[in-house]
């Protein structure tokens, strides 16, 4: 699905590429300055690399002198704001396959260094009515096209990108929690205490991963925007052993669960795809396939699950 990734490479990726140094056509001011002002002795590799300096002249430096350019916070943020061009991301959740394996939740928490009680992806067990069946219902952020959370944010900390992704900048968020009351899907979590997450030295905060979570701010599913940038699938999609989650691009009309790749429109037609609470008019980018012809009985999802998880579903009833 990400065939054209190279041509869509952002400035940020580009900076990374400069770090590698091969085939670079320009060096940013900061990186260049660091490069040229180095005067401490170091072991030279003897291998010279040609680079273009900021003033446009071709220079040659020893390869061992080249260090990856430090990611610049403002660059990272502006890339995270503009998103990926010519994309419209969407997710399809096949409810007939979900058996509460929770691999998506674990992968998400691991990938985003979330505390255990923070679930960006949450698995509900729903029952619509007494006479209808229970079913498992994984709920990521719906990345709505008319996102209430974005409308109500007083400082622009949460925003909608042209590629459809809704992100939170936790360096801007003031923690008023209005977005949490605004979201009808309970998709947002608040950092009630210091999450005590260790990040590697020199880590630059990127709203695309929202690492590290910050006390007093709001976090939520980011559709793994960082993975998408590298042409990979979101963590939950790759992790799901049942192939419940499909991810793709509406402009390409294609979604994949990592095993099979299908036409989005055909999937919607064949399987009667729908969106949760369509009547609220928030226009989610997450579609559901009804839990018909199920591959597992719903109770399978409770087998071998820790009490702290299975306890959640003890009183599930029609709602």
């Amino acid at each position: 699905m990400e065939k054209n990734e190279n041509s869509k490479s952002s400035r940020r990726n580009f900076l990374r590429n400069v770090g590698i140094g091969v085939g670079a056509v320009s060096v940013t001011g900061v990186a260049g300055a660091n490069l040229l002002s180095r005067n401490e002795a170091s072991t030279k590799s003897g291998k010279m690399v040609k680079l273009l300096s900021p003033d446009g002249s071709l220079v040659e430096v020893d390869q061992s002198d080249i260090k990856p350019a430090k990611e610049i916070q403002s660059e990272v943020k502006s890339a995270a704001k503009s998103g990926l061009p010519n994309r419209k991301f969407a997710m399809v959740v096949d409810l007939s396959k979900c058996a509460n394996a929770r691999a998506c939740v674990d992968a998400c928490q691991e990938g985003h260094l979330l505390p255990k009680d923070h679930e960006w992806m949450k698995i509900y067990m729903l029952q619509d009515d007494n006479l209808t069946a229970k079913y498992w219902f994984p709920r990521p952020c719906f990345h709505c096209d008319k996102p209430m959370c974005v409308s109500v944010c007083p400082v622009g900390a949460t925003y909608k990108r042209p590629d459809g992704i809704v992100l939170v900048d936790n360096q801007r968020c003031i923690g008023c929690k209005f977005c949490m009351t605004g979201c009808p899907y309970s998709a947002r979590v608040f950092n009630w205490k210091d999450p005590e997450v260790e990040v590697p030295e020199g880590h630059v905060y990127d709203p695309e991963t929202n690492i590290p979570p910050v006390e007093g701010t709001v976090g939520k599913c980011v559709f793994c925007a960082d993975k998408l940038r590298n042409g990979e699938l979101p963590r939950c999609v790759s992790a799901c052993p049942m192939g419940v989650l499909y991810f793709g691009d509406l402009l390409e009309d294609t979604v994949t669960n990592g095993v099979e790749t299908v036409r989005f429109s055909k999937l919607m037609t064949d399987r009667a795809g729908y969106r949760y609470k369509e009547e609220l008019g928030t226009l989610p980018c997450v579609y559901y396939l009804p839990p018909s012809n199920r591959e597992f009985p719903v109770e399978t999802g409770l087998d071998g699950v820790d009490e702290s998880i299975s306890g959640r579903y003890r009183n599930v009833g029609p709602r």
Partner: protein
Amino acid sequence: METDKKLIADLTPEIETTSIKWYITFFVLLAVFVVGIYGLIQQIDKGHIVTGMRDNVVWGFYIVNFIFFMGLSYSGALISGVLHLFHTSWRKPIIRMAELITVISLIIGPFFIFFCIGRLDRLHFLFIHPRIQSPITWDVIAILTDLFGCFIYLYLSFIEDFAILRDYPYLNVAPWKKKLYRILSLGFTGTEKQRKILANARTVMAAMIIAIAIIVYSVLAWIFGVTLQPGWHSTIFGPYFVIAAVFSGTGLLIILMWIFRRVYHLEEYITKRHFVNVGVLLTIIAAFYGYFTFSDYLTKWYGSIKMDSILIDRLFTDYYSMFIFANYVGILLPGIIIAFPKFRSIPSITVAAMIALTALWVNRYIIVIPTLETPFLPIQDIRPDWISYSPTWVEWSLTLAGVSVFVMLFMLISKIAPIISISEMQEEDKTEILH
């Protein structure tokens, strides 16, 4: 000038001397305040985990208190503005209190929002990165406008009094207070021209703060009304909040009248007539308020919308006693006590006002909390504090601190300014108030 002397002595009981009672009360309140500060320090240090708020109920006591205090403020503005504009003859001894309620609760209210915000250090982002789409931004603009307007309105009403105190030769106060009166009276000497300008300014401001109060409290209601949440998403919320605010403010005014009358021996100025008049006002407002409450819940209950039904169910089970107290007892009982002349006495009207005020706070609570406990997707959790909200000592301590600051500010103002407007009372025909 004998009247003046008596008036000034009666209406400025705390300016010249400080009674031992004043000190004791003040230090008790200060202690309550200090406990609140300790709670706040805990909250800043350990994070909002020390409160009862969790991911579903993200707004708790703080927001309830915020709406409550802002409501008191707007109603103070409305009451004093309306009484002023209509030249109600009996308003004079009590209008100053209504004005003080306005300004003092307007100072306290926003602090509860600050307590609720996760990153207090980023508060200025509201001004440097504002987004006009957000009702919170509307609220920031509205509250600042209101604060400005109310301060001007209150100050205008003080100018004449400061001039009287400045010119009063027998006033035995510290030189800094004399100096303060001289500065604050802005050279007012009571010439015909000055009186005319001041009277016009006060009338204009009275009209303006009525409009501002209505708009501003509606904006606050819309913070809830614009969301999609069951129980909040209601077109009636703007006017409903405004009327509820006036209800609470009128109740508070009666309570303060009772306290002031007792503490400062103002029996001569604040009479049963004032209690009855404000009480009748409270009853009329209670009728409107009850009507709005009924309309709002009836439409939710009668229809079959699933989320509304779940919410109403919860209100009539988990919140049954609170619901009955807030929306039946708190509205009907004050009305009954005041509506029948034989039940009317100063203590009974005061008790009615206390019931009304408490019930209104509970009403705010059951507007905010049950809705948050009833999200569209059911709460599936095993942690009790994630499922239902209960406030912790931190929230209680800050709530009580808010109340204590309210009283302390009243006490501090009584040290420098008359608690009843001297200038208004001079104009008042003494025989009329004593009737």
